[in-house]
């Protein structure tokens, strides 16, 4: 629905007209009076029509504004209660693929000494983000992804992981052997997977469980573009590859169930 301008003898009449034309109720629109209108004198001479502007309120948009406010409040309160000197700024935050925002709400905390807030491998930041999501969700009765960054840490990390992924993929192509990266948390593994998803000569998968789960970059067989091993979605995908490699990287594969990343 677009913005509608409508005239009537009085404001009330214009409003009624607009509502019936749009088929909405009064609380679904925002009405701005452009011109009050005048009743006019004898026989309606000199009367002026009232003119109003009617703007449909998008419920999601209104709700998002509220959520944004609650989330920002919550984050500011938490930062303050943690005795951290920092300023919360709203940030449009690209998601892991570098594209604009599957995460509609983003915050960056700016300050001088925020290393303590980021924590080892961003763990503290992750906890803070989790708590803010929880509180915001509880207060607004919705769940919205909220991303919290500090001093652009996540942004830098994404870039670092992307270039790491590309470097290691080049290596794999050159040598024709698989390469296993360090263990990483899920969202970091995801960045690696996404970065190399379109690469025709390698494919990636995650192995291991919990804290030690890590990404392996493997070469695809030359020519057919198919993985050298069995298709990705079979549980025995790595068996012929791992055979003859005693003490390899995936000893526990018997009880290992595949996760997307």
């Amino acid at each position: 629905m677009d913005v509608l301008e409508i005239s009537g003898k009085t404001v009330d009449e214009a409003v009624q007209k607009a509502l019936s034309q749009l088929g909405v109720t009064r609380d679904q629109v925002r009405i701005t009076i452009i011109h009050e209108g005048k009743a006019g004198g004898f026989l309606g001479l000199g009367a002026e029509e009232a003119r109003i502007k009617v703007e449909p309120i998008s419920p999601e948009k209104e709700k998002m504004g509220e959520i944004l406010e609650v989330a920002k409040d919550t984050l500011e309160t938490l930062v303050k209660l943690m005795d951290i000197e920092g300023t919360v700024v709203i940030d449009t935050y690209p998601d892991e693929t570098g594209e604009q925002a599957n995460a509609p709400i983003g915050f960056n905390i700016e300050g001088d000494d925020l290393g303590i807030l980021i924590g080892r491998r961003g763990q503290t930041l992750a906890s803070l983000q989790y708590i803010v999501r929880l509180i915001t969700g509880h207060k607004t009765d919705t769940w919205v992804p909220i991303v919290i960054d500090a001093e652009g840490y996540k942004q830098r990390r994404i870039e670092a992981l992307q270039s790491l992924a590309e470097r290691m993929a080049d290596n794999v192509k050159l040598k024709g052997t698989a390469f296993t990266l360090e263990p990483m948390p899920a969202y970091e593994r995801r960045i690696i997977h996404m970065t190399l998803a379109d690469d025709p000569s390698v494919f990636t998968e995650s192995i291991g469980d919990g804290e030690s789960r890590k990404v392996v970059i493997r070469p695809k067989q030359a020519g057919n573009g198919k993985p050298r091993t069995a298709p990705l979605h079979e549980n025995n995908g790595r068996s012929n590859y791992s055979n003859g490699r005693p003490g390899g990287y995936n000893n526990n594969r018997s009880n290992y169930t595949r996760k997307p990343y």
Partner: protein
Amino acid sequence: MKDLVEYIAKSIVNQPDSVKVTEETDEQGIILKLQVADEDKGRVIGKQGRIAEAMRTLIRVKAAKKGTKATLEIL
């Protein structure tokens, strides 16, 4: 220390009035004890203790800034 736990707990439970936090200090550092209504216990602990763990992480940061240690117990 108390205020941080209290704020988080009160913001995620259904009965904020039942949230009680006590603070003790011993040679190990600060011990925070969090008490909530029975029905809210799950809300402050979370699946596999995830919420409690996240609260502990934030408390640790605050304690570290003060040069001490802090533990959180949920009663």
